[in-house]
């Protein structure tokens, strides 16, 4: 591997990202999967870095999942997105940041389509007006939320309480980065690092002290792939993709996996349990799995937030081995205490995959 070759490509795929004043839109599904992630994004950006991030309860799905499942036409998705842009316009913002990778890809695809086919944009404006009497300005800038954490990575590093270093060995932790398919594969120039060697997550890992692993199936889909999972008959295909990735990364012994997509962390986390049950195989050390984190969760960990306050107890794969390597203290008895120390009940432990 020639690291300088990657650096050369990364230099070609950098983008100017506005520093402040963002209209933030959440994902449909992330709050059900790992609810701490979006909360911590706003906590870091607003609370810690004192940036202006606005969100509204009127925001809805972008229609991306239905669009990629071929269940609604493109004009419908465009009108939904036009409404989101109208909300941004009404709130007085010009910079639009999406929590979801598919939404990000959806927004970019629609804006590029309108650029090529202005008559379609005019039609969507008309449809939106007829539907809800709204008008919109197109955003001046569309980012994915991981772009923002990438932009702030050095500020976060400067405030970090923990480095991505194994406290037992002193060696940098080995990290696999997994980029959501809709981040750069459709429009490489709108990403950080391009489609082949994206840098958005690698940049965070490097800035926070870890080492990035490149492995043969790095670019492969996590296995979610809407038409793989949402069509029930295809779910075997979904897990076979995930299995392929884990088999490929296994020889590199990663300490954790970092993701920037709603579905990827969920499927790479949960399918490890299913693989363990069906194949009897686990990929972490001593029967554990490989922890899968979102970038917001990882940023929160290095900043010193309590692992249970950021929702890590909702992961299928136990994160405790990773916390031990990082030297992060945690209270095992508080793992299943929710807000106000409410007992959220312990899950049943799996038969094969070792959990805490």
């Amino acid at each position, binding site marked *: 591997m020639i690291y300088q*070759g990657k650096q*050369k*490509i990364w230099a070609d795929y950098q983008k100017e990202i506005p520093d402040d004043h963002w209209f933030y839109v959440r994902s449909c599904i992330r709050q059900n999967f790992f609810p701490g992630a979006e909360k911590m994004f706003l906590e870091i950006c607003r609370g810690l870095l004192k940036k202006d991030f606005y969100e509204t309860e009127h925001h809805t799905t972008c229609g991306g999942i239905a669009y990629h499942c071929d269940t609604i036409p493109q004009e419908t998705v465009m009108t939904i997105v036009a409404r989101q842009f109208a909300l941004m316009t009404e709130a007085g913002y010009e910079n639009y940041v999406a929590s979801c990778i598919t939404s990000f890809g959806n927004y970019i695809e629609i804006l590029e389509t309108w650029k090529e086919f202005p008559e379609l944009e005019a039609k969507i404006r008309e449809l939106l007006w007829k539907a809800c009497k709204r008008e919109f300005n197109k955003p001046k800038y569309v980012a994915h939320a991981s772009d923002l954490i990438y932009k702030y990575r050095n500020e976060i590093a400067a405030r970090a309480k923990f480095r991505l270093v194994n406290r037992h060995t002193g060696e940098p932790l080995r990290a696999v980065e997994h980029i959501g398919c809709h981040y750069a594969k459709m429009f490489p120039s709108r990403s950080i690092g*391009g*489609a*082949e*060697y994206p840098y958005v997550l690698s940049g965070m890992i490097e800035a926070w002290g870890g080492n990035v692993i*490149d492995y*043969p199936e790095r*670019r492969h889909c996590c296995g979610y792939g809407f038409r793989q999972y949402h069509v029930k008959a295809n779910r075997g295909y979904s897990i076979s993709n995930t299995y392929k990735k884990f088999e490929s990364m296994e020889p590199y012994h990663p300490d954790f996996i970092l993701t920037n997509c709603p579905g990827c962390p969920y499927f790479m986390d949960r399918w490890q349990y299913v693989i363990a049950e069906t194949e009897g195989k686990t990929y972490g050390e001593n029967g554990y799995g490989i922890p899968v984190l979102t970038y917001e969760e990882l940023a929160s960990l290095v900043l010193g937030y309590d692992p249970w306050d950021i929702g890590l107890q909702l992961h299928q794969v136990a994160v405790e081995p990773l916390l031990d390597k990082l030297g992060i203290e945690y209270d095992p008895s508080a793992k299943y205490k929710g807000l106000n120390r409410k007992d959220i009940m312990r899950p049943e432990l799996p038969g094969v995959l070792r959990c805490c």
Partner: protein
Amino acid sequence: MKENIVIIGGGIAGLEAAGQLLGLGYKPIIIEKSDRLGGHVADWNCLFPDMTPAKDVVGRLIAGATEANIFLNTEISFVNKLKDSYNIMLSNGISIITKIILVTTGFSVFDASKKEEYGYGVYDQVITNRDLEHWFNTGNDRRIDDCGMNAVGFVHCVGSRDEKAKNPQCSKVCCITAVKQAIELKQKFPETMVYCFYMDLRMFGKKYEDFYIGAQRDYGIRFIRGRVSEVSENIDGRVIVKAEDTLSGKPVKVTLDLLVLMAGMVCNPDSTKVANMISLPIDSDGFLKSRDNVADIIDSPKDGIFYAGACTGPKTVPETLAEARAAALKIHLYNKTMQ
């Protein structure tokens, strides 16, 4: 004859044209940017389809042009159009007045790192056709194991016929060069499995088809019709190649010790620079535009300015040499009409 004839470029086209012009009684001037003559062919080991040593071809051409005035390490600083001639200022401070310019600036090799999915410049075991030819010439490349390799792949059309790479043109020589290099590798390492990933095989030249059939029949080289979609590196540094075999309709995944990218021809930026100095038109493929692509390929739209070789588009060595001879004759006839 006293008329100055300036040849811009000391590759095989420039050398052949100079040799022919010397034979016709002229004293041409060759301006070459680099420190040696022969252009790309001088870097090659041997030439298809007869495995002719490239150094023999280049050596003969240089020997035939030694009487020309040759300026090495020399660039054109600027060109002024005079009433019926051109004033060419060279980087060595010499100024030449001429009514006849032959442009033989050739091509550039496509930068294979632009096709990011193939991993050139990122993965150690991904090289180009040019790198492999260098190894054939010198035996010196740490990426190639002299003791042999289990499997090697060739990817055709790297940066050619590729809208994404902004190069719609076929580079003409890559198919046959891949066959040639694959055979050479098999001759050195008979046990090595060799794959060629192609979208088309354009075996148009004399003996090309025989060469291609021989590669399969005599050397067992496997040709897979399908473009490579992804290249990655495994833990021991070998490259994993994914492609689709479009004939069998199945995906293919192979692990290789070496992947060779057949980087194509693109317009030499020096051609564009010269074109800008003399106000010559550029064709839609980025190469210099001839007066007519059928009957007047060696004529520029301007009187007294001629082309030969790959400055007007990808060409084989025989085509380039034929154009150079034609250009020399055309210049001779043009000079006679001026007198």
